[in-house]
């Protein structure tokens, strides 16, 4: 095979050239994007809310004034200086429980969205890039997952395997794989039409290389936008499943199960129902507003609403 030698020499040069161009097309204006984002007040508000939740989750062991599981004698205490949000039916400090509850929400949503992005992204990239039979086969599978309403699929997974943090992550991942597959497939289909993809193929790059270094950098924007939105809905699904008693099991604190337990005592102490729901709302709102801002900047085609 006479052509094999020049190809293997030309390949690295050509592909880095192509990929370099593609990467910088997405990332060179990063600082400019940041400035654009900073000008949008709602996006900044979203970023701040998300940052508060993230920091609360990360630093919970140091920020929390009490052990979230330690019971006390002062039950149903109203908010005061010693317990900022009061205490619950077992005399546990509500603020500490909220902070530790943030850990569950953040852990489940980030792990699930991360895994769904990886798996769904790979499926979508392969389907969009190869097209034809591969596309048909993969997308049929995705259609089957799409046939379940998100919460129903998550419920079915948790019902089968039992409620635990690990199974929650599994449930949300499975529910989100089709979403990421569709988004990435759509973008990959349009990116594939570009000349630089054709060019790198002509220069002898193999499929794997083209996909990773020419196509992938150009579908990153929609992936990032979608992931931000899905972080917010994942927090919601985790809370819903824990609310139904199918997620994190008590006494471990999670926002959903705290709200569910509060239902028995809320006439006595409405704070117990207000605080966890408020925490969920702020976290979800944060990622939603931030996602809206990111979408407007990174992916103007999707921002039809502005």
């Amino acid at each position, binding site marked *: 095979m006479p052509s094999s030698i020049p190809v293997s020499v030309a390949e690295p040069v050509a592909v880095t050239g192509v990929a370099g161009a593609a990467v910088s097309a997405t990332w060179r204006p990063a600082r400019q994007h940041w400035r654009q984002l900073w000008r949008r007040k*709602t996006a900044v508000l979203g970023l701040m809310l998300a940052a508060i939740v993230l920091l609360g989750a990360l630093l919970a062991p140091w920020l929390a004034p009490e052990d979230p599981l330690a019971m006390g004698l002062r039950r149903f205490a109203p908010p005061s200086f010693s317990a900022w949000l009061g205490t619950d039916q077992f005399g546990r400090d509500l603020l500490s429980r909220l902070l530790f509850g943030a850990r569950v929400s953040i852990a489940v949503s980030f792990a699930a969205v991360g895994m769904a992005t990886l798996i769904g992204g790979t499926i979508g990239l392969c389907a969009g890039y190869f097209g034809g039979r591969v596309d048909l086969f993969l997308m*049929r*599978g995705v*259609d*089957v*997952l799409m*046939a*379940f*309403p*998100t*919460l*129903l699929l998550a*419920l*079915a*997974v*948790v*019902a*089968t*395997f*039992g409620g635990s943090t690990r199974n929650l992550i599994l449930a949300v991942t499975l529910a989100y794989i089709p979403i990421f597959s569709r988004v990435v497939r759509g973008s990959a289909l349009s990116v594939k039409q570009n000349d630089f993809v054709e060019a790198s193929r002509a220069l002898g790059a193999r499929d794997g290389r083209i996909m990773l270094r020419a196509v992938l950098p150009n579908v990153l924007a929609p992936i990032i936008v979608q992931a931000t939105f899905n972080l*917010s809905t994942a927090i*919601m699904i985790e*809370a*819903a499943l824990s*609310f*139904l*008693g*199918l997620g994190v099991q008590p006494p471990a604190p999670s926002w959903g199960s705290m*709200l569910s337990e*509060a*239902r028995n005592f*809320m*006439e006595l102490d*409405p704070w117990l*129902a*207000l605080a*966890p*729901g408020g925490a*969920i*709302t702020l976290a*979800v*709102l944060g990622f*939603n*507003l931030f996602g*809206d801002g990111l979408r407007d900047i990174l992916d103007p085609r999707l921002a*039809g*609403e502005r």
Partner: protein
Amino acid sequence: MRRYIAVRVASLIPILFGVSLLVFAMQALVPGDIVDIMMGGDQAFGDKNAEARLRRQLNLDRPVPERYVLWLGGMLRGDLGTSFVSGKPVLGEILRRLPVNLELTALAITMALCLGIPIGTLSAVRRDTWTDAGIRFGSVLGYSVPNFWVATLTVLAGSLLWPGMPILQYVPFTENPGRNLTLVLIPSFVLSLTVLPLIVRMTRASVLENLRLDYVRTARSKGLPERRVVYRHVLANSLIAVLNVTGVQIGVLIGGLVLTEEIFILPGIGRLLLDSIQKRDFPVITGATLFLATVFVTMNLVVDLLHAVLDPRVRR
């Protein structure tokens, strides 16, 4: 058109086949022995003969592929199995609760559309004013508030406003329409809030998009009053996009139903599903999951077909 419908309906078959495979696989993957779960509280527990009989009855002594074929055959004949707990056929249990779901969903969608379309149109017509900003922020907020929290707080407000109010027993609409509606209206409204923000956003976006099109300029230049331009021409064309987003939201409504029924204590399929999950009543879990997924894909198909009827560009 007829060809389009035929193709779309036929495309349901492989999807439903895949759905049945997935649901069956989950059932087969249940950790632990299903016979042990079933006989857990029974006095015959440990009786090898009784266990073997049960195993034969459930076809558990056969290889998995054969079990799938037998199970699928039952499904196609409308036999969704028998509940471990009540001993009644699963399909009957589901159908008995279906009217509750139909009523809740129909009311919720109606309320969401009746509120969402005017609000969204107002937001678009008053673009970049405080009204618009308020509506837009309100819809992001509405999208971020967990519906089960709103429902819980509604129940709380009810019990604080009317202390000592007895918990009302559910009454079917056919028996006592007035009483039924007082029980169902508030839950339906809360449920409608799950889809309202998206309907508002979609209406706004598509009215704005249509306002930019040439036919609007034509309508204006032939001297039609603005009111007529918006309500007769723009809105009519925008509703197609709203219809589409409503279709997508049916899944959200089905998920929301599970929570709404749990919080407002309404005897629908969602509560049946939750109860059976708690009791590990697997035939009911699989039956209800399969049923809801089938309803979901069918509704999506109906919306797609409606879209094709209303917008000839969709039919190719």
